[in-house]
């Protein structure tokens, strides 16, 4: 027995599902959805939970995260109720609800998210200003802006921050979706085996290849989405390599013979190559989505929320400033390169701090949901 609550749909409607109450429950969306599967039907049941106000049911549905918003449901909806928008809005609602203390709410208001971004940027800017070293203007040496130790510590803090929040929010989410577990019990050994097996399925198929997304009709979107993901990963690798090259950590080399053989410069070259590739595809992906959201020619891009913009714009700026650093280095405009570096750090800081609450969070929640779903599938396939 569950109780209806008229306020849920009012909240969700504010998050983007403007027409959803026009739904007359025909099921066409669910039957047409390429990602809908037995026991994990979507999107119609999510619509029902939202309209009836069955909040626990909604938040317990991994289906929300199994959806990639292909838009086929919205395109075929006979009532123009836009089920895809409901799924998106419900995900936004879930991000708020799963977030610690509901803090993510900030990023679902235009004004609040701009204010918080400004505040974050000021904090980052102040940090750079306060801890800055003396700039070496004859060449580009990042550690002449901020010391190695500072960057190291700050990076560590941010990494811990992300890890803790991701863990806490992940647990919160899991506590909800575990109610959607299918009936049946398996022996402990099989459980572990399935858990590992489904983890690798998630890692390779979902995280790295976004295979489910490729079932959507619009392949260009799938490519762009994958481009953002891989652009981000590659840039992360490039940044790490670059950092490794420039950091004292390679002092370790002195201690180990085998490491001595490695030419440090190879890190730089690799970082450049990977960085350029990653940057290009990342820029492509983010520009694709920014463009789509500006021209609104597709069902999924018709309505954009503050959180979508925060994520897209930040990732774009991070990549852009990263590129510009390199350009200014090669053109010997070191002062500008430093400025860009500072901006790059600020945007990266903003991106990382807001990540658990904006669209970035999709990545994490989706992986948990898909892992859960793959695990359940293994459970019934037995």
């Amino acid at each position, binding site marked *: 027995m569950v109780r209806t609550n008229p306020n849920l749909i009012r909240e969700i409607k504010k998050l983007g599902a403007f027409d959803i109450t026009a739904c*007359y*429950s*025909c*099921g*066409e*969306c*669910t*039957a*047409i959805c390429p990602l*809908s*599967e*037995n026991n994990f*039907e979507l999107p*119609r*049941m999510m619509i029902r939970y939202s309209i009836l106000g069955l909040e626990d049911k909604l938040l317990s549905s991994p289906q929300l995260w199994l959806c990639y918003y292909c838009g086929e449901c919205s*395109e*075929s*909806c*006979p*009532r*123009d109720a836009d089920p895809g928008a409901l799924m998106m809005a419900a995900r936004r609602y879930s991000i708020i609800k799963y977030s610690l203390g509901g803090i993510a709410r900030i990023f679902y208001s235009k004004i609040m998210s701009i204010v918080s971004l400004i505040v974050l940027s000021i904090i980052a800017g102040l940090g750079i200003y306060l801890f800055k070293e003396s700039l070496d203007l004859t060449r580009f040496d990042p550690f002449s802006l901020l010391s190695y130790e500072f960057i190291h510590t700050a990076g560590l803090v941010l990494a811990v921050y992300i890890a803790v929040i991701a863990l806490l929010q992940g647990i919160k989410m899991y506590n909800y979706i575990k109610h959607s577990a299918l009936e049946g019990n398996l022996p402990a050994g099989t459980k572990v085996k399935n858990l590992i097996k489904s983890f690798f399925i998630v890692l390779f198929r979902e995280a790295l290849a976004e295979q489910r997304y490729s079932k959507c009709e619009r392949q260009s979107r799938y490519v762009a989405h994958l481009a953002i993901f891989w652009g981000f990963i590659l840039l992360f690798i490039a940044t790490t390599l670059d950092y490794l090259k420039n950091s004292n950590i390679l002092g370790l080399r002195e201690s180990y013979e085998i490491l001595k053989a490695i030419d440090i410069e190879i890190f730089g070259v690799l970082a450049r190559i990977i960085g350029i590739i990653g940057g290009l595809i990342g820029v492509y992906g983010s520009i694709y989505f920014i463009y789509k959201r500006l021209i609104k020619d597709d069902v999924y891009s018709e309505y954009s929320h503050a959180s979508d913009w925060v994520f897209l714009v930040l990732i774009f700026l991070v990549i852009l400033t990263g590129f510009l650093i390199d350009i200014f280095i090669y053109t010997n405009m070191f002062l500008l390169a430093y400025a860009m570096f500072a901006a790059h750090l600020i945007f990266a800081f903003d991106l990382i701090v807001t990540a658990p609450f904006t669209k970035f969070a999709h990545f994490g929640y989706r992986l948990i949901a898909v892992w859960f779903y793959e695990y359940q599938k293994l459970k019934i396939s037995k």
Partner: protein
Amino acid sequence: MNKLACDVVVIGGGIAGIQASLDLANMNYKVILLDSGPSIGGKMILLSKTFPTLDCASCIATPRMAESTHHPNIKILTYLQIVSIDKHDSSFEIKILKKPRYVDESKCIGCGRCSEVCPVEVPNEYEGGLVPRKAIYIPFPNSLPNVALIDKENCIKCGACERVCPVKAIDRNQKQEEVLIEAKAVIIATGIDLIDYSKKIEYGGGKYVNVLSSYQFERILNATHPYGHILRPSDGKIPRNIGYVLCVGSRDLNWGVKYCSAVCCMYSIKHAIMALHHLHDAEITIYYMDIRTYGKGFEEFYNRAVKEGVKFVRGKVAKIEEDPETKDLFVYLENFDTGKVEIRRHDLVVLAVGIVPTINDSALFKAKLNVYGFIERKLIDVDPASTSIDGIFVAGTAAGPMDIPDTITSASAAAMKAALYIERKG
């Protein structure tokens, strides 16, 4: 130019137009009944049986057609095009263009020998294209006037028909003819057409041979059935498992119309019951969202279908796929009884295609149309036969989707209003 005069011009020779004409004629008004097609009778005469009584449609429509043909107060003109309708102070002037049949209507005795010898075969639109007709043809067995016409576009001018015609009725030199009718009032009874379901790509867009429109299935079930039995078109096998998809184009903002077509639920149930009578052990499944059996005796009819074994499954069919080998069909839907997405196989799928108004030239009819293209009824809550123009009245489905009883009632009401208008009493 020919000139005619009468009290009321009724546009549209379907059951609504016929009923309105008969009512007016019985009140002693002179009526001219116009039909753009080669025969009066409209959609109803082409139906098999009518719900919920299951009496045959031609048994009801044929005598009405005959009565209107023989009524001294009614003149019928067919195969024509309305050129203009103009309102003057106290009268209307309707200009029509009578299209040439290339067969002399006054001579032809409807023996059909010409069709027998004609070598040209084209899809028969009256049979939903399921079987061919000839280039010279009588539209359907009980057409009125029961005379042949030549389909000029397909005629190869071989002269075979001229040679066999016993009364020398074929006249290749017939020209179109303008006729001007003066009338005191006008009734619009232009009726409906089916929604073009080829727009629904997910249903095969008319490509799958074993996906029939409800009209085609209606013809298959008809007593004068084109196949002589219920057969599926691809291989002539008797279908054992028929799927019936409701709301094809109706209630669908995506590619169809916003309104409900008001008749599909009932005709689909009728088809299911009739099909079950022919194919005793067949499985018939109707996929629906809401069963709208709202009229007198309709709910009882629905309950009867359930008792007789027709399966009703709630869920809108999202797409249909064809097995390229067997030509069997697979329908995709979310079944609300199980909560699962199901893919179900059928030998034959019938689409309950919704209805749209036939009127496509609003300027011509003068009377205002509503957003769906039906005639707008001005004083709908006190006088449902009225239109935006005084003296023009609307009958039947030209005003919106309705079933046959409602159509007949609205036609009688329109006749009453036209009579009152002519009398100007009040």
